[in-house]
């Protein structure tokens, strides 16, 4: 009865356009009333959901990204990406994807990637003959690389929700899958560009320009290295790494490139808080939902359902992929991690799946949901930034999502791709 009330409230309010954080909160309120539990549980679990030092990393990583954006470091990155891949067929599409890879190192969030790169690259791609819907599709498809390559807010929240997994190892484990997604998207972009006869850059850049762009980009690209090596070597925790990254960004933009003024800082700090607060309210209310599902025996129900179907690890992983894709389609990323992360991580342990490998499969699967209707926030942000109709965007993004699905299957069945790098680096640098 409680679960039924919860599900109905959730679906009705979701369809009526209530903000998702409040949809979850209101559903929990209804469930608590129906089950006759005390309302003290609402603020109690909301508080537990956000009372964590690990979570301080989230606003700090967002701050580092905001400082780099306000300090106009994006243009150096897009120029650098253009130098590397712009001369292939579909050059600006490749540039967009490569820029997402570099940009991932400073924001760790898909929406920041779509907004910052999309506002620059979508008009440029349209000027060069790409359809606006296609340019937006490339932007939102490649934006999922942001939360896979370190620093990743998604991995921070996953590690906090599940516990017992090193954030540093998850960060490093995301590098190869992130690059694989980029490669897969570039292959699809090349194929479509050939079919539609999209452009490629014909002019050559001067060595002076290449040198200047490289110098400007390297300042930005050092940041993710600082984070990864700092955390893995045990010099600082993930949270401290995030604060160090934001201080580093501040020093670079204010003292080295001088593209950021002290007067810009209040705006940057406020914008950081607004972006982070959207995630935080989701985390707070999802924590209540997680408690209610646990008291209703949902984790045990899911575990026994898996056990009844298969005891084979590979079949389990396939089923898991399908279920996570479906969850990603109907639920926003962070609530999905908070609610289902602990449940599935425990089940996966029973099947002998490596925790770091599982963390990457779990998060990448859910990230695909960012670009699928009806809850795909990437689609909505993309449609707004690219000024295109949602239907057109959904049609254009489909082939890219298929390629990302292919990568998900590869990283699921080749654990070597995710586990080798963190293990080797940890062994090399010391314990995380």
């Amino acid at each position, binding site marked *: 009865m409680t679960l039924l009330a919860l599900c109905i409230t959730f679906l009705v309010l979701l369809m009526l356009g209530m903000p*998702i954080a409040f949809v979850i*909160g*209101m559903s929990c309120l209804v469930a608590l009333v129906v089950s006759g539990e005390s*309302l003290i549980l609402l*603020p109690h679990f909301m508080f537990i959901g956000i009372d964590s030092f690990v979570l301080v990393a989230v*606003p700090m990583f967002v701050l580092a990204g905001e400082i780099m954006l306000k300090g106009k470091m994006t243009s150096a990155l897009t120029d650098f990406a253009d130098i590397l891949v712009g001369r292939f067929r579909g050059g600006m599409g490749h540039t967009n994807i490569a820029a997402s890879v570099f940009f991932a190192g400073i924001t760790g969030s898909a929406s920041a990637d779509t907004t910052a790169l999309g506002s620059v690259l979508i008009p440029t791609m349209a000027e060069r003959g790409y359809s606006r819907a296609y340019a937006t599709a490339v932007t939102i498809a490649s934006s999922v690389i942001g939360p896979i390559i370190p620093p990743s807010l998604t991995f921070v929240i996953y590690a906090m929700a599940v516990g017992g997994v090193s954030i540093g190892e998850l960060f490093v484990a995301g590098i190869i899958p992130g690059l694989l997604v980029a490669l897969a998207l570039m292959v699809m972009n090349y194929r479509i560009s050939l079919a539609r006869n999209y452009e490629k850059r014909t002019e050559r850049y001067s060595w002076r320009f290449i040198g200047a762009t490289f110098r400007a980009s390297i300042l930005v690209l050092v940041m993710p290295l600082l984070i990864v090596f700092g955390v893995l070597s045990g010099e600082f925790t993930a949270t401290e790494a995030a604060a160090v990254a934001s201080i580093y960004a501040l020093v670079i933009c204010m003292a080295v490139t001088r593209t950021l003024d002290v007067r810009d800082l209040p705006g940057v*700090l406020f914008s950081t*808080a*607004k972006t982070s607060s959207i995630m935080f309210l989701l985390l707070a209310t999802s924590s209540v939902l997680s408690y209610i599902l646990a008291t209703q025996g949902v984790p045990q129900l899911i575990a026994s359902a898996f056990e009844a179907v298969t005891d084979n690890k590979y079949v389990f992983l396939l089923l898991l992929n399908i279920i996570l894709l479906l969850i990603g389609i109907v639920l926003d990323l962070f609530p999905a991690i908070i609610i289902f992360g602990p449940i599935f991580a425990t089940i996966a342990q029973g099947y002998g799946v490596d925790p770091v490998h599982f963390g990457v499969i779990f998060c990448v699967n859910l990230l695909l949901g960012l670009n699928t*209707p009806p809850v795909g926030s990437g689609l909505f942000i993309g449609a707004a930034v690219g000024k295109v109709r949602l239907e057109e965007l959904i049609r254009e993004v489909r082939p890219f999502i298929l390629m990302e699905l292919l990568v998900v299957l590869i990283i699921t069945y080749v654990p070597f791709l995710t586990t080798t790098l963190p293990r080797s680096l940890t062994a090399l640098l010391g314990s995380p």
Partner: protein
Amino acid sequence: MKHMFKILDATLRLCIGACMAGIMLAVGLQVVARATIGAFSWPEELSVILMIWGLMLAAAYVLNERGHVGISLLVERFGARTGAAINALMHFLIILFSLAVIYGAYFKVSSVWSLTTGALGVSRAIPNLAIPTSCVLFILVSIRLIWIDLAYWRAKR
């Protein structure tokens, strides 16, 4: 009403920005201190308290800008006027939710009032109060948004 929101807006901006700057300084100081004179015990606790307060207040600010993620696809199909009425109803439900949280928080805050945190030695009620405070702001903001939505609904009649 307009003047009150203006003052509230400026105060909120100041508090939220100060919280974010405070986190960066506290955690940055901890990194430096550990490498030089040894780690302090208080920056972790302070940064968590600042984060909870700063971000919960910012959540109210974002609600004021209708910035929280939601699915507006179906509502848009009903047309602007019906959409405004549905939005007003949703904000009324947000008020109900916020009242329930404030009610629960009264007991929660009372239960931790005399307890203190480990490093800073402040009452545990201080971080816990951030949630009901933001809920009070959610209510104020929702009343304002309902007002706007209903005015639009009436104007389009």
